[in-house]
């Protein structure tokens, strides 16, 4: 951390919007890397999963066939980083035949309309 950062006591509300499937592109994995770094900055962090991004949290991921690392266990570790605000869009889940029981972590399910309000209350919105 630079001195510049240390002297700033600013706490902002960061929202990380995850929109892509966990595999096929690198967005989900690299987004998770940002979130893990962000945890060290003592900011107010929330994660949102919409569109195919809801698949990132799906239980039972098996990546052997594509020779890539299954990083879904990392979502369960987020709690240890004090990242506990995980939101999932109801419409995205329903469109993909998923329920909360299919997910690796407990989440708060919000409607599309509620997500608009959630975003409105954020200082920084990063979408991946």
């Amino acid at each position, binding site marked *: 951390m630079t001195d510049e950062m240390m002297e700033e006591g600013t706490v*902002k509300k960061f929202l990380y919007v995850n929109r892509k499937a966990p595999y096929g592109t*690198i967005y989900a994995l690299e987004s998770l890397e940002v979130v893990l770094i*962000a945890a060290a900055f003592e900011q107010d962090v929330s994660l949102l999963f919409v569109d195919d991004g809801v698949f990132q949290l799906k239980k039972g991921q098996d990546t052997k066939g594509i020779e890539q690392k299954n990083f879904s266990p990392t979502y369960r570790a987020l709690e240890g980083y004090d990242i506990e605000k995980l939101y999932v869009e109801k419409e995205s889940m329903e469109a993909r035949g998923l329920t909360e029981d299919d997910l690796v972590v407990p989440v708060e399910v919000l409607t599309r309309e509620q997500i608009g309000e959630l975003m409105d209350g954020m*200082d*920084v919105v*990063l979408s991946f």
Partner: protein
Amino acid sequence: MKFSILVNEGPYTHQASDSAYLFAKAALEKGHEIFRVFFYHDGVNNATRFTAPPQDDRNVTARWSQLAADHNIDLVVCVAAALRRGILDESEAKRQGKDGNNLAPGFRISGLGQLIEAGIQSDRLVVFGD
């Protein structure tokens, strides 16, 4: 207003780099400040000086370097994303045992913390990507 910019896509394939550049330029012309431009995902490919587009096309990398030189803008490339994609400065090339480096002038390689810091320090963080 103090802006920072996040570029998440590579040049040429995707318009995000162009839009980000044009946004930065327009903001500066209007008297705003650009605190930092952060390159992530394939966006790190904006930073290779080995880019050699046809002469009648824009040179995305050279354009960033010029902007940095003219306005003293901090162009930061994520180290993890850069190393995955073969974007190296001199010291990383040495550390990784590679026979060359390709980071363009005006860019520097650093960590993701620089992105978070940009979010904290700036009035707005604008994301350009897919």
